[in-house]
């Protein structure tokens, strides 16, 4: 077996608990369902809440992204779905999402939920404007749909147990979506760093760049925090270096897992800071960070820690007595 296939085997297809995959399903589907049902709770311009505005735009602005064009090809090349059709897609996607969250017909409903969101978000980005906030979530849904995501914490698993054929607690197919999302995260952050250095070189770190963007967004959104921060050149230099280093070095977590303890909170802090100062809503990244958490190991460790603590509480006084 070649080194590459051994590497792939070890990294992507080592046996892993299906519960970790199920936790990711619950977090990602649950969060996305929430923002689809309450689009303006977390976002300013959510595609799920402004289908009517997009549909009112003239045909001349319709330039479907290739994946949308492909999905709509059965109707005709370049087909622009009417508002009523997109609203039905939205409703159907929410229904599929509810089933996927409960874990009923998990693979099928996850696939429908993923395709629905692929179409809705892609539709929103087919009018000469695009954003980055849902892309990783849609990819995660597609990966989850191709994996045994309903083998734990799901009605499918419960029904299988009732039928006398419970799903295995671990599977060699339960790891790859988590691993894949870690790689995609690393590639996205690396992309952000490479794009900055490619477009601006080290001048991006001059402090004026961050001051300028903070001012620009502060004036646009009326956020006083960004205007305040823009007045502090030295702080902007430090934050620029911090942001670029996190983005550039994030891929190290793929080789040194413990670095996730540093880089994942740092990346989350960057997104939180960007939200507070510049109103860029990367909320959908938060549940995706679950791919860096070894849930089952944490759950398994919790009782041991509790036992150890209770043991200490029991043995502690005795030791003291012995000492006396």
């Amino acid at each position: 077996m070649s080194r590459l296939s051994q590497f792939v085997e070890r990294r992507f297809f080592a046996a892993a608990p299906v519960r970790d995959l199920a936790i990711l399903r619950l977090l990602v589907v649950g969060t996305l369902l929430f923002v689809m049902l309450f689009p303006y709770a977390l976002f300013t311009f959510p595609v799920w809440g402004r289908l009517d505005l997009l549909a009112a735009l003239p045909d001349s602005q319709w330039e479907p992204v290739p994946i949308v064009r492909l999905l709509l090809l059965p109707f005709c090349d370049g087909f622009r779905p009417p508002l009523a059709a997109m609203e039905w897609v939205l409703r159907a996607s929410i229904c599929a999402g509810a089933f996927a969250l409960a874990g009923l017909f998990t693979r099928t409903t996850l696939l429908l939920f993923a395709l629905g969101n692929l179409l809705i978000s892609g539709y929103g980005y087919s009018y000469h404007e695009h954003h980055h906030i849902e892309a990783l979530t849609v990819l995660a849904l597609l990966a989850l749909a191709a994996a045994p995501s309903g083998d734990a914490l799901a009605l499918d698993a419960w029904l299988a147990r009732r039928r006398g054929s419970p799903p295995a607690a671990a599977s060699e197919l339960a790891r790859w979506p988590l691993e894949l999302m870690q790689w995609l995260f690393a590639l996205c952050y690396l992309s952000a760093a490479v794009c900055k250095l490619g477009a601006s070189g080290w001048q991006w770190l001059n402090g004026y760049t961050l001051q300028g963007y903070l001012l620009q967004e502060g004036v646009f959104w009326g956020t006083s925090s960004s205007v305040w921060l823009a007045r502090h050149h030295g702080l902007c230099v430090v934050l620029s270096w911090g942001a670029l280093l996190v983005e550039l070095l994030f891929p190290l977590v793929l080789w040194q897992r413990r670095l996730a303890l540093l880089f994942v909170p740092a990346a989350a802090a960057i997104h939180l800071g960007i939200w507070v100062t510049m109103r860029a809503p990367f909320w959908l990244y938060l549940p995706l960070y679950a791919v860096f958490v070894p849930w089952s190991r944490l759950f398994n460790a919790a009782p041991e820690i509790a036992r150890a603590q209770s043991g200490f509480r029991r043995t502690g006084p005795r030791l003291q007595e012995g000492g006396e």
Partner: protein
Amino acid sequence: MDHALHISPDAPPPPSRWRQRRLALAVIGLFLALQTIAGLKLLAPSKRLPQLAPLRLAPNPTLWPFLAYDMYSDHWKEGRAISRPSVVGLDATGARHTLTPESVGLSFREFRDQWLNPLRGGATAKALPLARRWSERGGVALMELRCEDVPAIVVRDGVADGERIIGPRYPLTESSGEAGQ
């Protein structure tokens, strides 16, 4: 050992799992390849390199949901300015009053999208109603509204004010409002 717990790279998984593994491998390969191509702009070289224009096959968002994360990637230099527009009212004594979203009972976005930007674009009909909103909330009667822009300049000490630019002016008479309404 349960076949689901297969971990040895030398022991092949049962045939029933081969199809799923092939599907997983296809997804992994496709996703990582497309994200690498999009993220590192391998098919979208910079427009500043015209000799590479034929390779510019997939700029954002052609490969969506695979994207280059290139937002905020251009750099700024010291001295660059950004527009900072406002609406100012003049009363009978000539005193200046800056109309803020709070002072006219609006959210920042409502104020910006429904009043400030239209007034900057010459929407005469918006002037009198806005002045009335301001006066009704405790402000004095205004004789004129005008759009101004005091650009913010990025400097080492923080932010400096640029030279004030006076935009469209709207003398406030009953006829000016009614004409637009």
